[in-house]
């Protein structure tokens, strides 16, 4: 992988013990409950999980876009390029958004301003962050539209969002997000609302542009396939915490956390012969205002023991050898938050043979 090789130095983004909660009438909901991870320069990291697992709130916390109230970033550190974003003023943070970190959301129609031409929406950050003049900004905007694959870019600058298709709107969002050449691009379910063939176009575009520009990419999605295709490393989240973390090969080929194993067994696989029945995770996603004690996955886990009811398992290297199909030896060991990781690995190994 190309991205990993340049990453020996300090990571671009270091999230440490991030904790974000919301005060609701039903009580306090801790959406992100102590999350720690790094993103290196130029690398693509995936954040995967089901609804309510805290993946989007993690991204919003990094960008400091969590609505307050009811949201509060309770603790943690978000070191981006040497500064702790959580200590910045609103104004300083404004400069980071856009020029330091760009972000694309799921719904391009609601992220774009319907009454401004797309040209105006692309030139605005150029004028604000890069202090370009009007004419220069327009030239650059046309260049950017070209870059994201919109033909006749000069003419299209005068178009309004409603005149574009969903895929084109997402292309415009990418152009805006990359306009000030940020070091990190966050894509939060950016292709979820798009049709399959358009999704493929947008993902390829995002991957090509970020690797061309050396931009790091954080892909947030519930789609396990997208992460497998595009991410170098990934974090699997469940109920506000990272449960497993490693390279795509480590996590997909030798999943170690019962939740990751359950997720991979739940999806019908095009890469395998058709099966008669799926093997879903039993039960429901827990109510975030009333999480189980100990490990939050415990009630749905078939390996759970009494220890899992009491203590929270830390995210750590398992010491379990990653099977026979080893990933590159240079990569760090996968991290798993599970007391029973060894037992799980043994029973998976037994089921295989």
């Amino acid at each position: 992988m190309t991205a990993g090789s340049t990453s020996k130095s300090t990571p671009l983004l270091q999230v440490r013990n991030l904790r974000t909660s919301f005060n609701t009438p039903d009580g306090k909901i801790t959406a992100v409950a102590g999350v720690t991870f790094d993103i290196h320069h130029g690398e693509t990291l995936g954040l995967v999980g089901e609804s309510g697992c805290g993946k989007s709130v993690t991204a919003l916390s990094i960008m400091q876009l969590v609505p307050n109230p009811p949201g509060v970033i309770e603790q943690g550190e978000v070191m981006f390029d040497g500064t702790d974003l959580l200590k910045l003023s609103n104004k300083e943070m404004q400069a980071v958004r856009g020029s330091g970190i760009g972000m694309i959301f799921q719904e391009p129609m609601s992220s774009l301003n319907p009454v401004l031409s797309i040209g105006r929406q692309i030139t605005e950050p150029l004028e604000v962050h890069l202090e370009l003049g009007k004419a220069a900004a327009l030239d650059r905007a046309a260049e950017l539209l070209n870059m994201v694959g919109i033909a006749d870019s000069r003419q299209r600058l005068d178009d309004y969002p409603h005149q574009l298709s969903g895929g084109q709107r997402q292309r415009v969002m990418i152009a805006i997000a990359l306009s000030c050449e940020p070091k990190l691009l966050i894509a939060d379910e950016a292709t979820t609302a798009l049709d399959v063939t358009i999704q493929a176009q947008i993902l390829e575009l995002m991957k090509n542009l970020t690797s061309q520009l050396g931009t790091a990419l954080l892909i947030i999605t519930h789609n396990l396939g997208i992460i497998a295709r595009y991410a170098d490393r990934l974090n699997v989240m469940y109920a506000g915490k990272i449960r497993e973390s490693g390279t795509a090969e480590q996590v997909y080929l030798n999943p170690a956390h019962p939740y990751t194993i359950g997720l991979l067994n739940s999806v019908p696989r095009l890469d395998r012969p058709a099966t008669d029945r799926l093997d879903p995770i039993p039960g429901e996603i827990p109510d975030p205002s009333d999480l189980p004690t100990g490990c939050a996955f415990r009630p749905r886990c078939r390996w759970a023991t009494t220890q899992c009811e009491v203590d929270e398992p830390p995210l750590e290297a398992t010491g379990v050898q990653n099977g026979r199909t080893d990933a590159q030896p240079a990569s760090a060991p996968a991290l798993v938050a599970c007391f029973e990781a060894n037992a799980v690995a043994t029973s998976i190994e037994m089921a295989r043979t």
Partner: protein
Amino acid sequence: MTAGTGTASASATQERTDTSSAPTGTPLLSVRNLSVHFPLKRGFIVQREVARVRAVEGISFDIYPGETLGLVGESGSGKTTAAKAVIQLRKPDSGSIMFDGQELLGMSNSELRPIRRKMGMVFQDPYGSLNPRMRAGDIVGEPLKVHGLAESGDDYRTQVSALLTTVGLSPGMAERYPNEFSGGQRQRLGVARAIAAKPSLLVLDEAVSALDVSIQAQILNLLQDLQDQYNLAYLFIAHDLSVVRHISDRVAVMYLGRIVETADSKDLYENPLHPYTQALLSAIPTPNPRLEQSRTRIILQGDLPSPMAPPSGCHFHTRCPIATEACSLTDPDLRQLAPNQAAACLLATGYDAAPSPVSRV
């Protein structure tokens, strides 16, 4: 290459031995040349038709008792409109819909009523499709009342309890309101309601698309159990091709209002004949990083054309990676290219010599 080719060829040999899965007897539902158009009207007092969206244009398919037909396509392909026409929520402009031996087109509402009982529908949005002011038990039991299927109050309650149990909910939940249920439980309620009047056909319109994967798998298993138990036929509409392969016996692929390919599920996924099907399949990322590294993908250029002004000839030619000039002139019909597979592509091998219309749809 990697594991991908290995498994594909392995299951291909396996498949050759059991192509006898073709259903026999008479189809439960037989749709022929179904067209649904939406007129676009202009004018305030005197309205005139200025254009016509051909949402569904001359599609044909059969569904046999107890089998699942998957209908896939992207937005605007007409799959939902086709389903609505089948269950008579939308009047078709032309064609024929034979259900259980009766022609539905031209029937009056009172004639349709007893037939509607035999067709259930489950919608995508488990939040929007359940009345928030009704208790779960009444939502599930409403079809029993409408069709007079309960003999007494006690019988009604017994049937509702049994329905809730069948879909994996507890009878005690009958008193709750929809907002007290999770997304997966609400979809279970939707399924219970759909099967309440003991239908023989269920139309499932993106019924699992809005659910999280761990819950989606539970509902898919439930649907399969119900099918085995009651010999239900499913028209399963979805855009997710991996889910469709999992649940369907046969699959029809739609593009801009037409069926461009139809085949037994195995054949379609192992050997797609239409370039659109090929592109769709290659566009889906699989949860297998090694395979993903080695796979070649067909990235289609451009957007879906507007269904108001579809391209001439083959509707797909504007985005097709192999289109020739002939494709912009001739509109290909669906032809039988293999025993259980038909495609509408001028460039498909054997297309010229193939019979038309298709023998099995």
